[in-house]
């Protein structure tokens, strides 16, 4: 604490500052320690009176503004003092003078940033102290200003590729939309409807970029992004804006936009040039590009709408397969809204016990008996009724809900199966996503068996080929561990994947489920039958049972039987039924033996 004498000014003229026209009595001169404290401040200070004559100058101000020592004695006008600075230009001295005069005249504090030569910046604040004394305080802010300027510069460009940043890209669109159609000088009479200039936003996402980054490292990934940026630039016109929004997301603004045919050609050209091979750090790299396109004004009137709709179109392109492009269509928006609504409900459905299992019987064709049931997940939505699994399973997989949901199915199916009168098998579908953590999956199966008391041999898990296509090793290890618990393993949807035959040799599956597409009646029954026979023969040679699903007619059943399938399931026998009807189905079916109902 500084020992300020009460009723005294905080700053007192140390030097004789000339006549004080107020005529008020001068307070005693402050001690040397106060002066030292003022000199030690970060800010440069000068106090002055109404006529801008100096009362006090701290030494920080002299050093900061490099004031000629001959003038810095503290005598004279503020203007003289400033003019003795080697740092301030004449213009800046004028600004200081105006600020101080302004504070005196208006009796309100003034604040101004001074831009001195050599890109130095000072913040000046002028305010009244007590009656008729004022203080100007100078702080150098060059460092902050430089940092701010750099931040602004950084916001403009992506440092890696030199392309526009997201912020600046957004600005470019906003500016175009604001000054576009309304302010277009057409020279037409006002009655003529304006012909809005069209702008196209293309959202470009790289396919397989992540795997490049993961396998070859970030430095190669960064090198690749730079090459992508250059290839994109090479197909655009000089004035089209190109941005890296972040990661492997790029966006471009084609303005004015040509008609859709030309945009279509441009998009093809981009997917072509991005899909060509790259040499990065001596590595040969192949990636692809998916593109979503939204055009102003028909696909969105605002920047936000345009970007969102280009993104929706991009999702559509990605869903169609890699390296392709989609134009925005209004139904994409409706679909996205519907999806968001269902996603919100889906997250709550497990806790609200809205899921239930339905069971479809599997019939052995030789024994004419129900030998098992497939558990099929159903979602009973309070307002929408039964929601199709085709609608919610992919969504559950996408939002990561499939793992707890899959575990619920395992537990529930095992539990319910223990109440049935016959020791039939219970087949449960396991999603490829559940195989991403194989330990968790194996533990979940073990828990479902021990909690329910169901013998392992009654549980059959159905997997699709895609599970084996990625990470085959941990998946095979997990399948063997399941087999160790007595659990049976079936290959689902057989015949739809690429490498079906080789997959069959990788694990001793208990059963092959022939995809329903081979069961359906088609013109080429002969071809279909040949495929079915080939699969059943292959199964028999490998010691695997074969089951055909989707059997709906007696004719189909005949074909399946002739094809050599060991069992079937389908509407011809029974649709999937709620658990309450399972007992009746088993009893009823057995009652009709040996003459089957079909």
């Amino acid at each position, binding site marked *: 604490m500084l020992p300020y004498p009460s009723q005294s000014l905080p700053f007192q003229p140390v030097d004789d500052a000339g006549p004080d026209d107020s005529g008020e009595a001068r307070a005693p001169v402050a001690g040397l320690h106060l002066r030292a404290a003022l000199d030690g401040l970060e800010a440069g200070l000068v106090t002055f009176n109404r006529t801008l004559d100096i009362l006090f100058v701290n030494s920080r101000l002299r050093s900061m503004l490099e004031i000629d020592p001959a003038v810095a004695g503290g005598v004279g006008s503020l203007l003289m003092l400033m003019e003795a600075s080697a740092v301030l230009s004449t213009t800046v001295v004028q600004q200081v003078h105006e600020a101080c005069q302004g504070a005196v005249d208006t009796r309100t504090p003034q604040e101004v940033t001074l831009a001195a030569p050599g890109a130095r910046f000072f913040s000046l604040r002028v305010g009244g102290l007590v009656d008729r004394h004022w203080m100007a305080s100078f702080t150098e802010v060059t460092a902050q200003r430089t940092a701010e300027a750099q931040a602004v510069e950084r916001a403009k460009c992506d440092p890696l590729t030199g392309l526009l940043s997201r912020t600046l890209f957004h600005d470019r669109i906003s500016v175009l939309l604001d000054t576009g159609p309304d302010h277009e000088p057409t020279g037409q009479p006002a009655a003529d409807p304006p012909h809005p200039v069209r702008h196209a936003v293309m959202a470009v996402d790289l396919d397989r970029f992540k795997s490049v980054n993961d396998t070859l490292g970030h430095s190669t990934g960064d090198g690749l992004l730079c090459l992508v940026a250059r290839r994109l630039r090479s197909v655009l016109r000089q004035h089209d804006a190109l941005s890296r929004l972040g990661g492997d997301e790029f966006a471009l603004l084609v303005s004015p936009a040509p008609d859709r045919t030309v945009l279509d050609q441009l998009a093809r050209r981009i997917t072509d040039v991005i899909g060509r*091979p*790259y040499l990065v750090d001596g590595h040969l790299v192949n990636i692809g590009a998916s593109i979503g396109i939204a055009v102003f004004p028909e696909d969105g009137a605002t920047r936000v709408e345009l970007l969102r709709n280009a993104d929706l179109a991009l999702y559509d392109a990605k869903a169609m397969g890699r390296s392709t492009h989609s134009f925005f269509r209004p139904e994409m928006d409706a679909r996205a809204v519907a999806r968001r609504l269902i996603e919100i409900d889906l997250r709550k459905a497990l806790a609200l016990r809205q899921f239930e299992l339905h069971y479809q019987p599997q019939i052995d064709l030789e024994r004419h008996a129900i030998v098992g049931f497939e558990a099929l997940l159903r979602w009973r939505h309070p307002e929408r009724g039964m929601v199709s699994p085709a609608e919610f399973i992919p969504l559950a997989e996408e939002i990561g809900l499939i793992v707890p949901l899959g575990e619920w199915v395992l537990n529930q199916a095992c539990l319910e199966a223990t109440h049935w009168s016959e020791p039939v098998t219970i087949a449960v579908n396991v999603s490829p996503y559940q195989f991403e953590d194989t330990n968790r999956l194996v533990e979940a199966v073990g828990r479902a068996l021990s909690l329910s008391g169901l013998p392992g041999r009654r549980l059959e898990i159905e997997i699709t080929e895609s599970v084996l296509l990625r990470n085959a090793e941990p998946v095979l290890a997990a399948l063997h561990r399941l087999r160790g618990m007595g659990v049976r393993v079936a290959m689902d949807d057989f015949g739809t994947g690429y490498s079906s035959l080789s997959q069959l040799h990788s694990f001793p599956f208990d059963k092959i489920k022939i995809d329903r597409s081979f069961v359906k009646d088609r013109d080429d029954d002969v071809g279909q039958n040949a495929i079915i026979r080939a699969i059943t023969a292959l199964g028999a040679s490998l010691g695997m049972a074969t089951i055909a699903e989707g059997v709906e007619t007696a004719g189909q059943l005949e074909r399946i039987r002739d094809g050599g399938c060991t069992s079937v399931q389908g509407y011809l026998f029974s649709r999937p039924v709620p658990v309450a009807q399972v007992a009746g189905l088993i009893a009823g079916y057995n009652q009709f033996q040996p003459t089957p109902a079909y």
Partner: protein
Amino acid sequence: MSELYQVIYCSRNRIPGAPDTVSENIGGILARSRENNARDGVTGGLLFSDGCFAQVLEGPMEAVTAAFERIQCDERHGEIVVLQSGPIAERHFADWSMAFTGTRALGAGKVAGLGLSDTLTTRSGGGDTVLGLLRSVVVRETEWLESV
């Protein structure tokens, strides 16, 4: 001097028009690539056969990468398949900024029966064949250029 690097690719011709237009274009491509390559220390050979290009580029890695990038951005060809790429001990075309061989009948003719179109379709093999062929016929290229 960075280590020598080589890339061999083939691609399908997309230059529209009559054989004369195509050979004119190829002449332009060659002139341009010889100029760039001489500047950058890149050597190699270009083959036109069966409606397809095959090219060998060799030199310092950065220069080969840069030349390869320029070529990727060219719309006059497509369906590019890299047959082989990697470091090499020595240049195969040390004296050629860009050797060339091609058939007079640019549409369908094949140089030495080389079915580049099949190579492109099956996306397999061909690197050594292209390399060997280019090296064996490189001497005749100037004659061919003069004849068109």
